[in-house]
């Protein structure tokens, strides 16, 4: 970085124009006044290779921002929270938000792409899984700038009780389905963004009366990677 040269005023009296031109701020190339404070980046700051900048010249987070929220305490959602005839609803006002797999993040700049996803172990109580009389199952929707139907997930069987005939053959208590999915949005504007998973269940009237059916999430995480 160039040095500021000593001031040498030639006028016999104080001349404001001369003071400005000689001292405090007088743009020049190379700069020899307080102009050197204006960034301090010139060709001498470049890295060894052409068109490169050393890492220390850039602010952390200039190109990418990441967010990760993991948990390892059991999350419980009971089917009775979501009992409704419309099990496939995407109305987030009545679906149950999975609080451990939801968050609000701040995007400090407009992003070219935002990658997002989740991974979690699930253990659900449901007698049967899908498309069957008395079918019982759980599903999940991921919302990032709107419901992402392409990430729609139905949880596979993992019912605990294998002894009763009605429950038999459909699950292992020790079987915790693991689900990991991801997707990407492009041209996302800066600001606060919500990412959330919502849960819905379909259970029989008998199970509803028992009030025991639940979705357990022993461990999991959501993540976001935004790149300018």
């Amino acid at each position, binding site marked *: 970085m160039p040095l500021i040269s000593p*001031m040498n005023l030639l006028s016999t009296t*104080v001349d404001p124009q001369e003071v400005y031109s000689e*001292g405090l701020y007088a743009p020049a190339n190379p700069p020899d006044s307080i102009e050197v404070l204006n960034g301090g980046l010139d060709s001498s700051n470049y890295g060894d290779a052409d068109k490169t900048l050393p890492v220390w010249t850039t602010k952390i987070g200039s190109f990418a921002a990441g967010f990760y929220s993991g948990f390892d305490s059991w999350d419980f959602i009971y089917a009775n929270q979501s009992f409704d005839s419309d099990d496939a609803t995407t109305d987030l006002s009545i679906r149950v938000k999975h609080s451990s797999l939801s968050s609000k993040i701040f995007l400090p700049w407009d992003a070219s792409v935002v990658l997002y996803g989740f991974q979690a172990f699930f253990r659900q109580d449901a007698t049967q899984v899908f498309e069957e009389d008395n079918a019982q199952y759980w599903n999940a929707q991921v919302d990032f700038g709107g419901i992402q139907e392409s990430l729609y997930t139905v949880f596979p069987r993992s019912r605990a009780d294998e002894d009763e005939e009605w429950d038999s053959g459909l699950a292992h208590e020790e079987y915790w389905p693991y*689900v*990991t*999915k991801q997707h990407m949005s492009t041209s996302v504007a800066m600001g606060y963004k919500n990412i959330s998973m919502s849960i819905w269940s379909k259970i029989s009237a008998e199970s509803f009366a028992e009030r025991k059916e639940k979705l357990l999430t022993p461990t999991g995480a959501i993540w976001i990677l935004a790149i300018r």
Partner: protein
Amino acid sequence: MSVDTPGSGDLITKTSVESMHTSVAGVINDVKQGQMGGSTLGPSQLPSLIHTADTLSITSAETVTFDDSFDETSIDTSGGWARLSSYNLDNGGTGGYELPYPGFIYAYCSLRVSEWLAFTSLGSEDGNEQVWANLWYQKDSVNQKLQRNSRFINIKKPTHAVFVDASSDDFFTVEDTISIAWLEEVTAGTLNLITITAAGNYGGASSTNANTATIANGTIGFFYIPKVV
């Protein structure tokens, strides 16, 4: 950094101006170059890293056919492999995406394998039926990563089939996920397409009982970051 300000009634002289200048210059000249340049550049000055990105959200179902001729090492659509036609990133059929500089491609997909159909109503006898998928790309008309990124899931057998109605759809529920992601260094050229091939296979000693499997919905996408511009 500070400068002694003149008091009320003091005369501003050449000497006092030069003194103030010397005071300021001395402080500034002691600042190290690295301190000045450090963290100077931010989002306002620096360009975006992403040159090209594209993604698809697929909600229409795709069918994977099981084939006894399955060959894991096949590098084309023989050996039981077939393209998932919906999962096709080719820039809207315009021939692909320009890669003007060497750089990196990140690609991903997540597939929901929802159910399968068996030749018999008994479901899987041993849970050895498999659904395979492979995320690959074609660049400069040459197929890449055809073998190196396959993933598969096993179809699980019911635990107590004897108790359950053999026609139960539950026999045929899979509800498992295939997610693949990779990062690839590429040279300049044309990225023709990124897509998925899938196959059904039987991993056991006897022949498969599976007919087809359904991929109900899924995602696919990529972005390209030039290494040098």
